């Protein structure tokens, strides 16, 4: 009965989305104002109905109702509660429902509070949002019904993939979905603005918080996913250029570009058509990623339940949304003039350069991800990996990072290099010193060396916009930029250091034996069996001492889950301020010896600290912008009130 209630709520939400689309489209035509009043209420109730459907699914997972197919296939009564709940979105159907629920709630929020844009633009935006939502509802109801019942409930569920039974990963997919949803809202705003030809600075200001929010969530999602892959998969790497990783990186790149071009549009009324284009591209990238991952068209380490029928369905949605938006863009972009002009040496100039570089990087990642698809049509199987992405990407990443160090120092509209020559020399000198220092330390590849030098220079440069300002009066949005740029420098330092200075050791060690890696001395004291609620394991007990200091105990495990059967490695990490020791215990090597795999990775944690700083910067900027908006709204209300009281 409960499951049917959820399905009914889903149908209701779908019907309301259809109404919202119809009324919104009608209201755009002359004489259609009568139905305009329906649009906002429809959006609000749709949000509530869809959120209710997702709550029902959570409830079914919480009580492990095995008569529901999705629960039986993804849950197990022996699982801890948090993973029972995470099971609700750790699969195709549930994650789609979560996505559409958050999207519907966002639509409801816009319908309730957003009144800054011309009402027609708002109606067009909400209609576009309903159009996107309607496709997802159809997808859920027709080919991915999460509430489907089983004719005969099984005695026990199949369990959640053990790799996913991890708190970080329970939160990783929803984080990315929040990001995708934010981009869908930006997409709807872009379509709304195109339909009514209202591409104004106000439009950029209204869209910006959604892009910022999406960007913060995408940053967090990618950072968390990378750290999870690092400690859970047990091969010591943190980025693999796997199609699914790329699928999350591409929307991030587009959103980063969009964020910066929206700033130009909001502040200077320039880059109108370009911002619209990015709004369409950013959401297209998230849809494209979803298609690549769920259709099984590309082979990936992320084993989603792959289904060609679902693939076809998403492809149809892609055609409708992206094809439709791009066609609309082609028809209307000519009528959107480019807006204010600016000099090459200016804040806008630097931001345009940043946008071009980001777009190029996006193109490179997209090409590398789709290339196997292209060659497979000619029966050639290839796999594109780090040698392509790292080398070709660097061609654009390095100039972008260099301009990123300078751009925030420039003034809007027109500036001269003469005015900022002193900070420029300072940044250049720091990078040069760092480069020489890194050269003296160790012989290593060109890219890690350049990475180290640029990271140090960028870290200093990111704080220069604060020079000569009273720190308490600096707007929150500027702090956000400083923190985010600094975070990127920190992450870059971690990446470069990891690839330049990592040491690896593979050893077969008996109890009491010792292995060395970098400054660490690791002693294997014991290997014992261990057990958890749904797994058994062998656990190595290691004593690791850094440069002869006090030993730290590490207990890496090799786990065997039985529901469903699968083996995972639980690496053990010893974290110091200057890096991490990464230990994995493998199978028995004969004669009482065990395989130990050890890595010493100097400053590797900076990658994820940096990612978190970037997200924090985005959050600061978001809070700053929202507070500004609320203040402006209060001022406007006061002015309106005064006008109403006093006769003009």
């Amino acid at each position, binding site marked *: 009965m409960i499951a049917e209630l959820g399905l009914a709520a889903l149908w209701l939400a779908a019907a309301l989305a259809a109404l919202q689309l119809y009324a919104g489209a009608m209201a755009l035509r002359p004489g259609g104002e009568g139905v305009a009043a329906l649009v906002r209420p429809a959006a609000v109730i749709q949000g509530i109905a869809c959120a209710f459907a997702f709550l029902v699914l959570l409830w079914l997972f919480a009580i492990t109702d095995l008569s529901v197919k999705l629960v039986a296939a993804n849950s197990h009564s022996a699982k801890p509660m948090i993973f029972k709940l995470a099971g609700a979105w750790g699969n195709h159907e549930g994650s789609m429902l979560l996505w559409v629920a958050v999207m519907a709630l966002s639509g409801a929020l816009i319908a309730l509070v957003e009144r800054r844009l011309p009402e027609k633009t708002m109606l067009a935006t909400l209609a576009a949002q309903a159009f996107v939502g309607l496709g997802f509802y159809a997808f859920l109801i027709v080919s991915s019904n999460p509430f489907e019942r089983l004719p005969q409930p099984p005695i026990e569920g*199949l369990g959640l993939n053990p790799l996913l039974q991890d708190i970080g990963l329970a939160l990783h997919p929803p984080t990315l979905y929040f990001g995708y949803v934010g981009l869908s809202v930006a997409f709807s705003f872009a379509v709304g603005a195109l339909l009514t030809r209202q591409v104004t600075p106000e439009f950029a200001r209204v869209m910006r918080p959604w892009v910022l929010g999406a960007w913060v969530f995408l940053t967090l999602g990618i950072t968390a996913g990378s750290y999870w892959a690092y400690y859970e998969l047990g091969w010591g790497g943190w980025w693999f250029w796997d199609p699914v990783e790329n699928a999350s990186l591409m929307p991030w790149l587009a959103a980063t570009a969009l964020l910066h071009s929206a700033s130009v549009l909001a502040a200077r009324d320039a880059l109108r058509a370009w911002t619209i*284009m990015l709004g*369409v*591209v950013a959401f*297209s990238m998230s849809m494209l990623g979803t*298609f690549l991952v769920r*259709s*099984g*068209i590309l082979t990936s380490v992320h084993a989603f339940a792959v289904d*060609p029928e679902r*693939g*076809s369905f998403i*492809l149809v949605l*892609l*055609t409708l949304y*992206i*094809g439709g938006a*791009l*066609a609309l*863009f*082609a*028809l209307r*972009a*000519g009528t959107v003039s480019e807006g204010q002009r600016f000099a090459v040496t200016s804040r806008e100039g630097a931001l345009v350069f940043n946008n071009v570089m980001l777009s190029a990087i996006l193109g490179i990642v997209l090409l590398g991800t*789709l290339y196997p*698809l*292209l060659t*497979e*049509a000619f029966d050639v199987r290839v796999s594109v990996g780090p040698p392509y992405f790292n080398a070709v990407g660097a061609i654009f990443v390095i100039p972008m990072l260099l301009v990123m160090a300078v751009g925030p120092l420039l003034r809007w509209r027109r500036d001269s290099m003469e005015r900022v020559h002193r900070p420029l020399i300072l940044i250049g000198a720091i990078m040069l010193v760092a480069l020489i220092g890194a050269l003296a330390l160790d012989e290593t590849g060109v890219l890690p060396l350049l990475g180290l030098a640029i990271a140090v220079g960028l870290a200093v440069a990111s704080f220069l916009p604060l020079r000569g300002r009273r720190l308490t009066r600096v707007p929150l949005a500027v702090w956000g930029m400083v923190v985010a740029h600094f975070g990127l420098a920190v992450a870059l330092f971690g990446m470069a250091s990891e690839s330049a200075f990592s040491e690896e050791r593979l050893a077969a060690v008996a109890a009491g034996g010792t292995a060395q890696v970098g400054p660490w001395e690791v002693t294997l004291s014991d290997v014992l069996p261990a057990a958890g609620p749904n797994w058994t394991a062998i656990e190595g007990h290691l004593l690791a001492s850094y440069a002869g200091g006090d030993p730290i105990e590490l207990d890496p495990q090799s786990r*065997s889950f*039985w*529901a*469903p*059967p699968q083996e995972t490695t639980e690496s053990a990490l010893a974290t110091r301020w200057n890096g991490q020791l990464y230990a994995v215990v493998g199978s028995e090597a004969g004669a009482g010896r065990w395989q130990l795999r050890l890595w010493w990775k100097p400053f590797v944690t900076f990658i994820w600290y940096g990612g978190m700083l970037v997200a924090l910067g985005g959050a600061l900027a978001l809070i700053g912008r929202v507070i500004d908006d609320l203040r402006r709204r209060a001022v406007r209300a006061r002015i309106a009130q005064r006008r109403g009281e006093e006769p003009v």
Partner: protein
Amino acid sequence: MRWWWWLPLLLFAGFLGVATYQLTQPKDDLVPSAMVGKPLPEFDLRAAAEGMPGVSTADFRDGKPRLLNIWASWCLPCIAEAPQLERLKQEGAEIVGIAIRDRPEDVAAFLARHGNPYTRIGGDDLSQVQLAIGSSGVPETFVIDGRGVIRYQHIGDIRAEHVPILLEKLQEAGE
């Protein structure tokens, strides 16, 4: 209107073309065993269920061809293929089972519920034998001739239409 405004749409159309073509292509994800035509590797597995013998390589060298079914009590397609195994048994095939990563009580419960077509069942707790004979999943069924040589591999659950094929392969292995 300038032509380059249409460029993004054009690129997207190109992608759609390739993606549609790829989606309509049959995707061959099966991994055939490299062991077909070679003798079984040496193994000796414990009994997986009470009251039934375990399985070793020597059991396949008495001149009689057999089916070797790789399965598990936790595998749903294995339930689907149970009636077909029963039919094969009625047609005179001798079926040897290897249960992958299973517990005796689960195996017993499965057999009680879905029938027992096996003459012996070995327990392969670490998938070692499964991997050694080139099986990448459950269920899979191999035809083994009377000298212990792997003659044929069936990947996935056995459906009704596969029964005559397996019987024919079994007969060929006996000649």
